């Protein structure tokens, strides 16, 4: 498994048992080797260039559902199971996991959690990290540890899972996760709206989040991606997609609320889409990052607040408008997160562009992390926005404590961890 043009010096290992995995880690840690764990490999581009990369640790053999308790709305799975496989099994019982990461047929639970993959089910159902109720993790030295439990409410001991959500596998290798589940909505549909510019789209979003309803998902798309969603290219139009779910009357009421607010926000077009088309729409939005596979494409992730997002979007588009790159922004309205996509980043002189974009985002007290960047450019710009990070010392201390030999994903995380 090549990461940033680097091959693992000792190749790949695919353990098939917990004992095997534990021994492998113990030996590697004791021998000063560097391990990069992976599942589906869909997000290996996230992170800095590995400082040491000896073993590509393939966890895809850990793909079982350990237990599913439909009546308790909980399940425990091995980390190498794909999101798609898990959701399919849960759907048979009218349930699902409120985690909606890109490319679910390849993306694994472990990789999705460790890389904090951005999904779109985080409004009504809360943040994906809050679906985790227990975790089994192997430390760098191979010790198997667990925390949490299999109940939906638990304050026994420290909430160790929090260390590993978004920790990029730098403090331990996730082997099992227990989740709380959600009943499938009785009815699901989406509303697709077109606004003439981002100001009206943000204004609409602000009004929606001030109303009595809370959607299952909300995204606004601006730039090249608009053509994919509407069939017509436009640099100024913004597409908003809202997923609604619940009982029939509640869905109808939510549609009424959306329609009214949309009309007040001068919506250009509005379309109500049934479940089948809705699923396709959200698949397109969710998996858009998966379509940017060319060497010279870039994915940036913005961490902001809803109130800052419109100004950030406008400033970014003004800067990108004078470059020769194709670009898109998919924004999570009401949440304050966004993904920025840039294509055809041809030459190293484009580093100036990336630095400008980061400076713009930083000027709004927000953060821009590059989740996909050509390896050559990673030498010239920190993929992480470490300048905006607080508590770096404490983060380094965690790494030093849990992985003193820097065995796991060495150098790939924030602040060179």
């Amino acid at each position, binding site marked *: 498994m090549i990461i940033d043009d680097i091959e693992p010096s000792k190749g790949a290992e695919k353990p098939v048992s917990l004992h095997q995995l534990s021994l492998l880690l113990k030996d590697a840690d004791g021998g000063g080797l560097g391990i990069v764990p992976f599942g589906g490999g869909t997000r290996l581009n996230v992170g800095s260039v590995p400082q040491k990369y000896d073993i590509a640790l393939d966890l895809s053999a850990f793909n079982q559902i350990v237990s599913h*308790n439909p*009546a*308790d*709305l*909980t399940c425990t799975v091995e980390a190498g199971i794909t999101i798609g496989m898990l959701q399919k099994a849960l759907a048979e019982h*009218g349930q699902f996991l409120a985690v909606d990461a890109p490319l679910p047929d390849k993306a694994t639970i472990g990789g999705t959690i460790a890389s904090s993959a951005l999904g779109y089910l*985080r409004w009504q159902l809360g*943040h994906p*990290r*809050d679906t985790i109720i227990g975790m089994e993790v192997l430390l760098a030295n191979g*010790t*198997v*540890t*667990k*925390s949490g*439990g*299999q*109940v*939906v*409410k*638990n*304050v*026994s*001991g*420290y*909430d160790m899972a*929090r*260390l590993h*959500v*978004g920790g990029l596998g730098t403090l331990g290798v996730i082997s099992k996760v227990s989740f709380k589940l959600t*009943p499938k909505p009785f009815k699901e549909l989406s509303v697709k709206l077109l606004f003439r510019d981002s100001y009206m789209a943000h204004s609409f979003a602000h009004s929606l989040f001030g*109303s*009595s309803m*809370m959607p299952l998902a909300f995204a606004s798309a601006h730039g090249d991606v608009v053509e994919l969603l509407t069939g017509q290219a436009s640099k100024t139009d913004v597409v908003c997609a809202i997923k609604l779910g*619940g*009982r029939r*009357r*509640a869905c*109808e*009421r*939510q549609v009424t609320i959306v329609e009214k607010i949309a009309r007040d926000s001068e919506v250009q077009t509005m379309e109500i889409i049934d479940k089948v088309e809705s699923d396709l729409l959200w698949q397109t939005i969710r998996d858009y990052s998966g379509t940017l596979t060319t060497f010279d494409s870039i994915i940036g992730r913005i*961490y*902001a607040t*809803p*109130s800052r997002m419109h100004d950030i979007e406008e400033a970014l588009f003004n800067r990108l408008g004078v470059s020769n790159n194709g670009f898109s922004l998919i924004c999570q309205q009401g*949440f*304050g*997160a966004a993904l920025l996509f840039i294509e055809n980043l041809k030459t190293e002189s484009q580093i100036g562009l990336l630095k400008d974009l980061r400076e713009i985002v930083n000027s709004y007290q*927000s*953060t821009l992390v590059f989740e996909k960047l050509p390896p050559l450019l990673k030498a010239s710009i920190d993929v992480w926005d470490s300048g905006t990070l*607080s*508590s770096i*010392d404490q*983060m380094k*201390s*965690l790494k*030093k*404590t849990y992985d003193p030999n820097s065995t796991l994903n060495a150098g790939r995380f*924030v*602040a060179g961890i």
Partner: protein
Amino acid sequence: MDKSVKSLIDVVGSDYVLWSEADLLVYEYDGSVDRSTPLIVVLPETTEQVSKIVKIARVNALPVVARGAGTGLSGGAVAEHGGVVISMSRMTQILEVNEYDKYAIVQPGVVNLDLSTHVAPLGLYYAPDPSSQRACTIGGNIAENSGGPHCLAYGVTTNHVLGMEVVLADGTITQFGGVERESQGYDLRGITIGSEGTLAIATTIIVRLLRVPETVKTMLAVFEDVETASAAVSGIIGAGIIPSAIEMMDHFCIQAVAGAGYPEGAGAVLLVELDGLEELVEDESREIESICQEFGPLEIRVATNPDEREKLWSGRKGVLGALGRLAPNYYLVDGTIPRTKLVDVLRQINELSESTGYRIANLLHAGDGNLHPSILFDERKPGDTKNVLAIGAEILRICVEAGGVLSGEHGIGLEKQDQMPLMFTDEDMAAMALLKIAFETEDVFNPGKVFPTGAACGDISQARAIARVGPGAYI
């Protein structure tokens, strides 16, 4: 005067440093059975003062215990090893409310319910609602990752905190998280919440606010026994409905709150609440009524106005205090089990009650399986305290054996630390304890909590409790 006292007076002024025996007595206990007198109590007003206090304590090799309102039920705020108690009771400001982004920035001494009251005019509220919310503080909620009846639908404290400013064990002031919903790097915010004051002291907290639901509906369903009520709970959840709260009380609780309007002689009552859009609440409440009817309820009552809702809840909210009508003391246990094990575990608890001769009143957050068996006793009777602590330990063993956990919302603290091996191996606990090393606490912050002391399960907490419980104590 001790030199550390003098140094602390230099930081906060003499009015806010307590060191006389009479003053310290008030701070020797919390809502649990444990007591221990601190050496000094300090009441700071700012983060910088907290930082200086921690530095002084460290230089003088004194442990530090942060304290909110002292309502905790597991000994979290008890100065087990003496030292300095930092009381947050002067840090009570709501510093900012951002209506657009829906967050508030508060000091740790802000009372939980006061926050919701403050933002109510904006149509917002803070969701975690522990039963002690009229007194408990946001800082204490952070330490224990507090829940409450409505956490079934809305989650617990960690789901509603975006970030915090903290003071570390060497006095360093730093920020975990922020106003954004998520951030790069390790989730230091998440790992600190529920760490029971052992890793860091939160001095400013950024909390997420929710929009007040359009409507709310509260229903009371009365059943012959807890088994039938439990089956009704399973039926509701099995129908794909997640109410905002499902509370259950057994006949002892109903008897205690006689006068609250609950039918006397009933075996169990369910208090079910739904909130959200009117259409959703109407449809789901009709279905819940229909489901409950399948289990032959003695009565179903639906509140039709806020006063009736208040009345239905008043019994539930007053039940613990009302247990005093049945016995001078009670010991409240806090295990959580899978919902599907409710019937079986409640049966075992009932058998335990019969075999030991101690009445056990069952109050539970039925929706999430968080039990609160209350063992009734009289601490004046020789042996009673020792016996109820043993019964409590046995109940927790039953919970863990049923696939549950030691604590749903009260925390481990001193009360359950020696039962941690029921859930966790030495390796699990060692991995957790490494956090103290990573945070370089050197056991300055709240030492002697959460992890076992090394004695046999339950022995230490029992011995401690028996030695310290005094007249009029209830737990």
